[in-house]
């Protein structure tokens, strides 16, 4: 015994004070030196594993979700203000209206549109490569206040002065671009000019804009890294022939979760000034991604909950074995005056105890596994050579995890409930045994 005598005696005394149904259930579960006493232990292990796996997977999924959200919040505006199909005129006045809202931290104009780019490799360095990314025109000073772009430069510098360009990491890789490399950028305006010239049967020579890669960024979000280049606001305005106009305003809030309330306020404030404006929020803009993560998590939860159902069936079969084994004792209890309900209570208490121990152990194991998840992955990789989350695909320095108390509560509570339900049938059978027949049972 690991416990010294006074402590274990105190525990036994405390146990005795429980209602007799609980007391008996605990006594029945006390390990003895026989193979049969291992049976309840196996069902505890079943519940433990189910709960632990649920906690680990759901917490990792929550971690992914939170990380995705953080990344989205990092480089996306909390709110965007624009007009339907037309450039935003008078954006400085509008920015003032928006800034006057107390919840707004910063406002920055932006231009965002598709461009065609062509690399200009040095002599003998292969042929030119073409892509059609989004070009985002930014005001470098204001951008520092509305996004994390400037902190995510992995090569070169955050510099869009003159014809400087910032390129996403994966785009730079696929186009074999490095700092100082040059690019030709064709805008839709230039393509339109070419088309108009052809219609008039005139030869129009298009001279693309020449840009230089000044920096490479990695915002931790593949889609963005592979499809966005960043230039100065003036250049983008020029490419899109916008003059002093912009496509819209990026608005950052102190609390990104208050977007709905602020959206209504901004909407009203802008409309008082006249004109039709559209205000969109970050959850709307990224609904596809956020919902995909959510759906994935829900599906995982449902699938994994089946582990718990299997564990619960384990409890049912263990209890059926137990009831058969204890048939004569059930007869004795009834002879001593126990009601059907009290006999049921003994076996329900047992499933409750098994469930409680299993959930408790599963909670502990789950927390432990989450705390050492990265060490575990590292160990697995060393032992098997197999990388579960290859960094080249997931781009994660380590596995994220977020323990959400409400989710843990649902997992633990739901598992407890299942365990008790699993005990209902055997307990009901035990309660209905006829005393004399039970007493005669050998």
């Amino acid at each position, binding site marked *: 015994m690991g416990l010294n005598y006074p402590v274990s005696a105190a525990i036994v005394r405390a146990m005795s004070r429980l209602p007799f149904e609980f007391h008996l259930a605990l006594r029945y579960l006390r390990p003895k030196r026989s193979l049969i006493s291992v049976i309840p232990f196996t069902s505890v292990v079943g519940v433990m594993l189910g709960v632990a796996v649920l906690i680990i997977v759901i917490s990792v999924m929550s971690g992914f979700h939170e990380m995705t959200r953080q990344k989205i919040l990092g480089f996306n505006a909390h709110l965007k203000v624009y007009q339907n199909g037309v450039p935003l005129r008078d954006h400085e006045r509008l920015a003032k209206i928006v800034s006057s809202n107390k919840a707004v931290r910063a406002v920055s104009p932006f231009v965002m549109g598709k461009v065609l780019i062509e690399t200009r490799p040095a002599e003998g360095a292969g042929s030119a490569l073409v892509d059609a990314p989004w070009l985002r025109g930014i005001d470098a000073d204001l951008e520092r206040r509305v996004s994390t772009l400037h902190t995510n430069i992995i090569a070169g510098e955050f510099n869009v002065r003159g014809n400087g360009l910032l390129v996403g990491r994966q785009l730079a890789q696929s186009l074999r671009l490095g700092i100082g490399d040059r690019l030709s950028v064709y805008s839709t305006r230039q393509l339109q000019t070419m088309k108009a010239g052809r219609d008039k049967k005139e030869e129009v020579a298009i001279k693309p804009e020449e840009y230089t890669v000044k920096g490479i960024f990695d915002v931790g979000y593949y889609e963005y890294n592979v499809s966005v280049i960043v230039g100065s606001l003036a250049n983008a305005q020029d490419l899109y022939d916008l003059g002093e106009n912009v496509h819209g305003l990026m608005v950052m809030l102190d609390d990104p979760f208050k977007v709905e309330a602020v959206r209504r306020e901004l909407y009203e404030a802008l409309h008082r000034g006249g004109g039709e404006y559209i205000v969109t929020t970050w959850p709307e803009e990224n609904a596809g991604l956020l919902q995909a993560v959510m759906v994935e998590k829900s599906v995982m939860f449902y699938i994994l909950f089946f582990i718990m159902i299997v564990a619960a069936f384990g409890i049912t079969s263990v209890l059926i074995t137990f009831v058969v084994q204890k048939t004569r004792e059930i007869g004795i209890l009834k*002879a001593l*005056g126990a009601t059907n309900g009290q006999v049921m209570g003994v076996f329900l208490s047992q499933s409750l105890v098994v469930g409680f121990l299993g959930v408790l152990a599963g909670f502990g194991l789950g927390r432990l596994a989450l705390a050492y998840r990265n060490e575990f992955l590292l160990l697995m990789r060393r032992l098997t050579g197999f990388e579960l989350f290859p960094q080249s695909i997931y781009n994660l320095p380590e596995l994220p995890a977020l323990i959400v108390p409400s989710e843990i509560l649902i997992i633990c509570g739901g598992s407890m409930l299942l365990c008790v339900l699993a005990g209902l049938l055997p307990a009901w059978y035990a309660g209905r045994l006829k005393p004399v027949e039970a007493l005669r049972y050998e």
Partner: protein
Amino acid sequence: MSELTPTNATIPLLRAVGLGKTYFTGEQPLEVLHGVGIEISAGDFVALRGASGAGKSTLLHLLGGLDAPTAGEVWFDGQSLGAMSASALAQFRSTHVGFIFQAYHLLPDLDAVENVSLPARVARVAFDEAEARAVDLLKRVGLGSRLGHRPAQLSGGEQQRVAIARSLVNRPRLLLADEPTGNLDSHTGEEIIRLLVGLREERGATLVIATHDTRVAAHAQRVIELVDGRMR
């Protein structure tokens, strides 16, 4: 005699009329009891004597509400057991009946005190009160030094003493003992019977013993002979 206070002097404590029990398990129905009628007054000590298979245990089970008769009826203190619901019967056994079995039927996972206090715990007597009663009774049956022992650590005679103490813990008015000495040697059996008789007198309980042993039956005030399920 002890100072008895029967609830109603004119009504016997236990009354069975036309009691029959037939089992329908095999091809032929098995009639274990037929037309048994008994009246037992409060404080009586009655022995049901008969050979093995004469129906003594079955009669005892019917009298204690552990089983239902296929014919006839049992009244306890003027109340029909047949009219009681399952939970009322459980309540009846808990409050008014103490069973003692040939095979002791102690719970192997509980020690002596826990076994004896169990019927009181079932009847929702407070823990301390139930334990105090159990310790008192165990001392009374001579097991004051064996309180924390489990059944496996006790001899047959000691286990039956624990079972006797257990039957008394709820202070029942009716004690039903089914071959209480059947598994014991004659010397220990005699001790057990003397203990049982002594305790019955102390507590003024009614005692019905089923036995095949004439020496045991000789202690009783009245002997009812059962032969092939009928009274003789």
